[in-house]
């Protein structure tokens, strides 16, 4: 378990301290795929670097299985880092080493015996599906292959945790998919807890179980992905998760808009048709983005009632309340 407690990071500068992170509190449970999302400059890269102390926090604690990284000796810190793999946006492979020797690097650092090194390298390259590239150099590989090498390298010391700093941001959508699939597989088969920093919603959507939204050095929202996605509360989260919804609700049509929130409650009948049939009220759908996780609907829908007066609207909202659907009136 990784616990981040009251984490602060400020950088001194001539015009006063620049605050990068402020009062961050997060807990990552074992087995999670934890996404940290934010716009660029929000402080998420600094946050992930604080987890393995590549950046030294100004204040606060980083507890890895109860051990406070900010308090351990330098030697112990180096040992603990071997338990926290890391991959990067630009892969950061050693260009003068072959693929297998890149994977060997952390094993050399940890003084693993040569026989054991070779065994592990072979297995790791199998996991990332690059056995045939063992003798190649990074310059001969595509971006996706390089990231696979980086993943194999990060896993070489059998770490319990894997930090991913914008690991798919330099890759095309298809390659991103395959890297995310690989990360999920690693999480499930090897039991590695994964922390993913990204600015791309689709990354979180695809593999994360929990998410924290960072804005202006703060965690503004966090929790299960399904919950945060269904009902993002902060402006940033709305912007990231449902940019089209914001546009839809911002449109001035003169009519009252209702935003329906699907939180995973199972509706017995298709809602909009049921509404039309039961109440005889036809509604316009301005926006809809719903997804099915575990056979339950999550997402949003924005509807308006054309020329609807207050009475009509009240009838609709009563109906929604009766069906247990969350809604919000938007102007």
């Amino acid at each position, binding site marked *: 378990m990784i616990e981040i407690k009251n984490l602060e990071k400020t950088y001194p500068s001539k015009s006063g301290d620049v605050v990068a992170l402020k009062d961050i509190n997060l807990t990552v449970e074992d087995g999670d795929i934890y996404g940290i999302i934010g716009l660029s400059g929000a402080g998420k890269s600094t946050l992930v670097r604080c987890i393995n102390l590549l950046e030294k926090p100004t204040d606060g604690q980083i507890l890895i299985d109860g051990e406070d990284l900010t308090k351990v000796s330098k030697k112990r810190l*180096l040992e603990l880092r*071997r338990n926290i793999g890391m991959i990067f946006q630009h892969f950061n492979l050693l260009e003068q080493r072959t693929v297998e020797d890149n994977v060997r690097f952390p094993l050399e650092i940890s003084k693993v015996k040569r026989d054991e090194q070779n065994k592990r390298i072979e297995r790791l390259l199998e996991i990332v599906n690059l056995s045939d590239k063992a003798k190649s150099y990074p310059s001969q590989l595509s971006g996706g292959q390089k990231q696979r090498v980086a993943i194999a390298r990060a896993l070489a010391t059998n770490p319990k945790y894997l930090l991913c700093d914008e690991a798919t941001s330099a890759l095309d959508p298809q390659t991103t998919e395959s890297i995310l699939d690989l990360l999920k597989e690693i999480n499930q088969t090897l039991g590695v807890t994964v922390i993913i920093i990204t600015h791309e919603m689709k990354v979180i959507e695809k593999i994360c179980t929990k998410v924290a939204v960072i804005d202006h050095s703060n965690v503004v929202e966090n929790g299960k992905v399904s919950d945060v996605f269904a009902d993002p509360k902060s402006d940033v989260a709305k912007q990231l998760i449902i940019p089209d919804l914001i546009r839809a609700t911002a449109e001035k049509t003169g009519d009252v808009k209702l935003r329906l929130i699907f939180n995973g409650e199972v509706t017995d009948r298709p809602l909009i048709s049921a509404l039309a049939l039961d109440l005889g009220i036809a509604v316009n759908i301005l926006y809809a983005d719903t997804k099915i996780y575990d056979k339950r609907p999550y997402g949003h829908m924005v509807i308006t009632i054309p020329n609807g007066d207050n009475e009509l609207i009240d009838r609709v909202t009563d109906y929604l309340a009766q069906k247990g659907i969350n809604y919000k009136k938007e102007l």
Partner: protein
Amino acid sequence: MSDILQQLLQENILWQGVWETVYMTLISTVFAYIIGLPLGVILGITDENGIRPIKWLNTALGFIINVFRSIPFLILMVAFLPVAKLIVKTSLGNKAMIVMLVIAAAPYVARMVESSIKEIGSGVVEAAKSMGANTWQIIYKVLIPESKPSLIIGAVISTITILGYSAMAGTIGAGGLGKIAISYGHQRYKDDVIWVCVLLTVIIVQLIQVLGTFIAKKTDRRINPKKQK
């Protein structure tokens, strides 16, 4: 062809000169690197953006290196003769000359190495750190191997610079092409001797450059990712 040039050729003095130039240059380069490489690494890593920033050490070392680099070689050579006497027990001849070349070249080499080391991106270093590598491991497993092609190019430039310095060897009684050009060519008014020496020096420099560039390219896995055995 002048009689003196003929005499130089017949008595093999020219070839001896070539040999002396080459071996003084190479030995000096080796020793300059033994001293300059660690200094360059220290300069690189103690920089404020380095892996182990130590401001006072970086400033002090940088200052000393700058001092040595500002002394013109001819002056440095005569000023430091007592040092040669201390180290090789003589202040004359090829041995003394090698000491002088090393004193002059080591700071130069240090700056070359420093710049090569600094070319390594912070990302690779960060990755090594994230794997639990300590400072020493980052130096000998990341910084030096990754900057190898650049280090080789630097070594070629340093070698050629040292070769240029070695032409002044005659001043303290050492040999080589520079000495031949001065004492047989210039002082006896034989222009053809001077030009033969120039030509031979040009050939040596070209050989070093071509060979060095070839090795640097051949071993650079970014541009020449030939399969390993």
